[in-house]
């Protein structure tokens, strides 16, 4: 049974007629689920996950961190359809420590203590994930989990309906500003031109720099775009 307040929100979404995916009331949904932030990742056909909507001041940083490390619960939920419930990232006996070495500590450093990632899918078709976090540790209640599953399923339906509608009317599924990591892609392209390489290689260089300097990927990308940071192909940065 989906929470009645959330049901109202979702009903309103059904009537969204503008271009692109309707803005989801993620902040209100996070409140109801007892969380401090929620994000929607799209990863159709197991593509690299893209954050397209978010609420909460730490959601972007949490996703950025997993992009730098190339691992984490959000990516596994979005790309592999795995349900990931981490009620306490500081619990060193939990499987997260073995599964993603180095990640739980870095998440804790963001002042995030619990992470919950719900796959957004229809049957076997993976579309993305709904990711939530809390600054205080502890499991979600059964009711909260039931609501989160309902929300993830409803979002899957909305995505399918939006994409089907977009196909009919030739509008874009993702309206501006869609991608929260757009600057990372821009910096990737700029770096590819500088290094005369392809974008895959450039993104690895960008991530490598962020990882080794323990910086958010988005900050590194902004430095590249502002020409404050040049990365050569030997891994040496010059400012």
């Amino acid at each position, binding site marked *: 049974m989906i929470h009645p307040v959330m049901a109202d929100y979702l009903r309103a979404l059904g009537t969204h007629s503008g271009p692109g995916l309707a803005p989801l009331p993620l902040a209100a949904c996070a409140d109801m689920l007892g969380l401090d932030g929620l994000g929607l990742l799209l990863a*159709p*056909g197991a593509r690299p996950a893209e954050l397209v909507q978010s609420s909460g001041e730490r959601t972007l940083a949490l996703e950025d961190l997993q992009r730098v490390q190339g691992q984490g619960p959000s990516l596994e939920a979005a790309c592999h359809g795995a349900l990931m419930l981490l009620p306490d990232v500081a619990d060193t006996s939990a499987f997260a420590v073995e599964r993603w070495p180095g990640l739980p500590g870095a998440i804790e450093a963001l002042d995030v203590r619990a992470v919950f990632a719900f796959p957004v899918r229809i049957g076997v078709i993976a579309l993305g994930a709904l990711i939530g976090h809390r600054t205080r540790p502890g499991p979600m209640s059964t009711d909260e989990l039931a609501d989160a599953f309902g929300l993830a399923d409803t979002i899957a339906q909305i995505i399918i309906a939006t994409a089907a509608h977009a196909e009919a009317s030739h509008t874009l*599924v*993702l309206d501006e500003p869609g*991608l929260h990591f757009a600057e990372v892609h*821009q910096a990737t*392209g700029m770096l590819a031109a500088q290094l005369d390489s392809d974008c895959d290689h450039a993104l690895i260089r960008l991530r490598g720099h962020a990882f080794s300097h323990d910086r958010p990927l988005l900050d590194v990308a902004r430095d590249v775009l502002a020409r404050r940071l040049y990365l050569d192909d030997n891994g040496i940065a010059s400012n």
Partner: protein
Amino acid sequence: MATENGRLWEGGLRITLGGEWGMPELPREEQLAAAFVDLADTLVQDFDVIGFLHSLAEHCVALLDVAAAGVLLTTPGGQLVDAAASDERTRQLELASIEWDEGPCRDCFRTKRQVPNVPFATEAARMRWPRFAPRALEAGFTSVVAAPLRLHNQVIGALNLFRDQPGPLDDSQLRLGQALADTATIGVLQQRAVSEQMTVTAQLQTALDSRIIIEQAKGYLAHRRETGVEEAFSLMRRHARDRQMRLTELARQVLRGTADPSLLERPRQ
């Protein structure tokens, strides 16, 4: 279409039930169960609707007291197409039925109901289907019934069951034929729903890819033109508009370095 059906028909011979193809005879209950399982099993990789409807036709011939079975499907536009038949003479007959726009399948589809037993060698049959009834007699058939492929109000086609012996098809057998048709209908509709969602997912993938490629191309061009990202985007948009190109395609060319030099290179002062 004929060769394709022929090929699929050969493929269909793999589905064997009972002693028809020299296999040991299964008890009837097992044959029935196997038929329903087969017709419910549509969520497989490389599912082929035509092959699937061939199994429906074959199961009907194996399980019912009929000589042949044919299946017609409707396109979304309401056009009937021949989908499957248990043998070549039946397929020819179905094709003729579509061409002449008369026969049991057409009637079944129009009325959305079963067409009860019609013996071909009667005045009534000749009045109802002036061309189809004599052709069916020529093909060696004595009578026909037709069952709609129906779920709720949606009719997606019809199943024809032909006899070559005197007398009508038993009521209980007709009910079984309808049950097989119903199961097959659910299978086809399920497959259609899945493939529609697959299409939508592919579309979503393309949309996401396009967005990422455009962002990357903005950065690439900003470096080449020694300008900002927003200015690079304006240049790309103008270039695409002037040449009536899709922005995504231009972005790909930019990233490959194959875009027009007038876009990639900074104009010399």
